[in-house]
């Protein structure tokens, strides 16, 4: 049984290279209101909507998701049945933990800060998967 949704191992590095700047850009956008001016498209219909469109946040989010998926879906150097099972298990784990955390956050965070919860929630499934999968692999290697 081979897993054909996986991409070659070398994309893992590319994933990190895309992920880290995207996360930094996203953090700067969210916490420091930073925008790239060249990504602004002027609004032609100022009567309806008073702001210009800026695509810094779109770039940041797309980059973060792309980076995470590249890392999560890249093959290990040796792909065998155990790694396949571990991958599946880690995905299940990630989905479960993600929703438990989301429910907790839903009851603990209210009003505007909840917007932050939603933003982070878009990225936490691949993040938890990557952490869990590589943690188990590293633990196995150490033995």
């Amino acid at each position, binding site marked *: 049984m081979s897993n054909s949704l996986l991409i070659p191992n070398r994309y893992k590095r590319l994933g990190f290279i895309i992920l880290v700047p995207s996360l930094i850009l996203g953090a700067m956008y969210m916490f420091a209101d930073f925008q790239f001016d060249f990504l602004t498209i002027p609004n032609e219909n100022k009567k309806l909507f008073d702001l210009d469109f800026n695509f810094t946040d779109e770039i940041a989010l797309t980059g973060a998701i792309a980076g995470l998926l590249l890392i999560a879906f890249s093959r*290990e*150097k040796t792909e*065998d*049945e*155990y*790694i396949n099972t571990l991958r599946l298990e880690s995905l299940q784990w990630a989905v479960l933990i993600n929703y438990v955390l989301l429910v907790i956050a839903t009851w603990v965070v209210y009003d505007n800060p909840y917007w932050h919860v939603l933003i982070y929630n878009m990225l936490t499934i691949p993040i938890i998967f990557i952490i869990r999968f590589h943690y188990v*692999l590293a633990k*196995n*290697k150490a033995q």
Partner: protein
Amino acid sequence: MKNTIKVQRAIHNMTQQDLAEKIGVSRQTINAMEANKYVPSTLLSLKIARLFHVKVEELFQLEEDE
């Protein structure tokens, strides 16, 4: 389920890495099997048994409550 892979490996004087290479899996797989964290597929079990010249039932035993 118990397995005697480690014992067989010792008898044939193989490291986990050797065994892994001979059957075409990663060392993590061998480690996980010996630590009883992973039950190998039938295909893999047969390959290991063939490599050690034993029967599959000698490698893997069901426990009382299974």
